């Protein structure tokens, strides 16, 4: 069970920042329609800076652990910094190779983050193709 490295399972079993924010600046939900995994992200922001984060979601260990791992890095980041997080970074966080069939599971967190930030700026959401990038 290489893919299910201990830290992935740990984040899956004990997700960080998985809570409801009282007065979020923005809340946005995304789904991986091919499997039904969901993540809803809430951010509390000030001067284009992330102050607090809370999320909820349902799905496989990869999608949920990745969101938990990503959530640990967001506080204090500016919108621009958060928007510039690349897909490679999520793969680094997971630390194990994720096959093409599970790429969207791994990147659901990033897709949700980017579209939450876009929603905060009243910009249209980006497509999965933009998040995943041309392979």
């Amino acid at each position, binding site marked *: *069970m*290489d*893919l*299910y490295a201990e830290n992935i*399972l740990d984040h899956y079993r004990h997700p960080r920042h998985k809570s409801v924010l009282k007065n979020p600046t923005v809340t946005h939900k995304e789904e991986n329609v*091919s*499997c*039904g*995994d969901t993540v809803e992200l809430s951010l509390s922001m000030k001067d284009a800076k992330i102050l607090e984060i809370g999320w909820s979601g*349902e*799905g*496989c*260990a*990869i999608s949920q652990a990745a969101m938990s791992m990503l959530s640990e890095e967001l506080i204090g980041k500016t919108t621009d910094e958060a928007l510039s997080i690349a897909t490679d970074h999520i793969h680094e966080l997971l630390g194990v190779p994720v096959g093409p069939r*599970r790429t969207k*599971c791994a990147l659901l967190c990033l897709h949700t983050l980017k579209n939450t930030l876009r929603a905060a700026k009243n910009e249209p959401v980006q497509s999965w193709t933009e998040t995943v990038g041309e392979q």
Partner: protein
Amino acid sequence: MHYDVEAVRRQFPILSGGICYLDSAATSQKPNIVLRAMDTFYTSQNANINRGVHALAEAATVAFEDARKTVQRFLGAKHAHEIIFTRNATEAINLVAKTFGRSLAQKDRIALTLLEHHSNIVPWLQLKEEKNITIDWIGLETDGSLNESSIADVLSKKPKLLAITGVSNVLGTKIPLKEIIKKAHANGTLVLVDAAQMAAHEKIDVQDLDCDFLAFSGHKVYGPTGIGVLYGKEKLLNDLPTFLGGGDMIQTVTTDGFTAAELPRKFEAGTPAIAEAVGLKSAIEWIDSLGIAAIAEHEEHLLAHALEKLQTIKEVKVLGPKDAKKIASCISFTVDGIHPHDLTQILSEKGVYLRAGHHCTQPLHNHLGVVATSRISVAAYNTIEEIDRFATEISHAISAWKK
């Protein structure tokens, strides 16, 4: 007669490496004889059909029409020209939805069941979008069989057509088609059977069933991808407008218009999947050589054994009927605390291949109240030992995951 599963298995080159393939409901593996038949076609008969008079064109046309006759026998159809070759079951269903649907108007209704695959839902929803027709859904009992009063209720609204699967690709439920078709006809409703999941597991006799249309895919009956079949009663097919336009489907073309070719070519525009038709013929002959009843009996043993094994694992919840006599092809289940995708990946690493997800049946999954499930499905080449191996790996995954 003794069913020699090891002898069956040896005919499937892909299985020789010891993989435990429990995903035949998605697509079956192909025996050597099918691969060879296609190879032989390409190495000795390949030419376009219907378009030439040279010897190869003749040989290819004969091979293609022989395939049609084999399918005719497989389905018990009255005429070979009632067999239309398509790309797959999906295209066969679309053919009916797009042609039969053209004459429908706003007040008309189409009936479906909650067991349907997206392939037998979306073409009708597209028609709803275009024509504003109404779709009525036949509901389910808790065990996944169709609800009798819902059948009566939906049919009493006199839908123009009922499109119904023969076997659920999630719960495995076998549908009492003959009975339902009789009731539908009594209400003036035509019936299209989606036999994609049924064709490899049950003898089909379209004249005995009296269905009006029936669709299946070659790749789920040990044949190649890229070939499917629509059966339709001669009169109905003759009355339908044309589907795709192009070469082969016309009698005459002028600058003003065209006249359609006779059946079956009326619905076969463009160069068809000739080698794949030859492969499908070989696959059907392969099934016949074992006997579909013998295959079905073997599979029932496998499903019964799987049900028994799964029910001993307390974290596992089986979703469909728990009686192997009531199901064919597959069993779906959930495992407490492990998402189906994780489970499938863990088992895949052990060489055990099953399917996870909504299996193209979102309305059914909504009805069951689950987003995704895991599914095992069986075929002629699976063994009791594979079911045991699968059950053992599930137990291992549960204990490793929960530690």
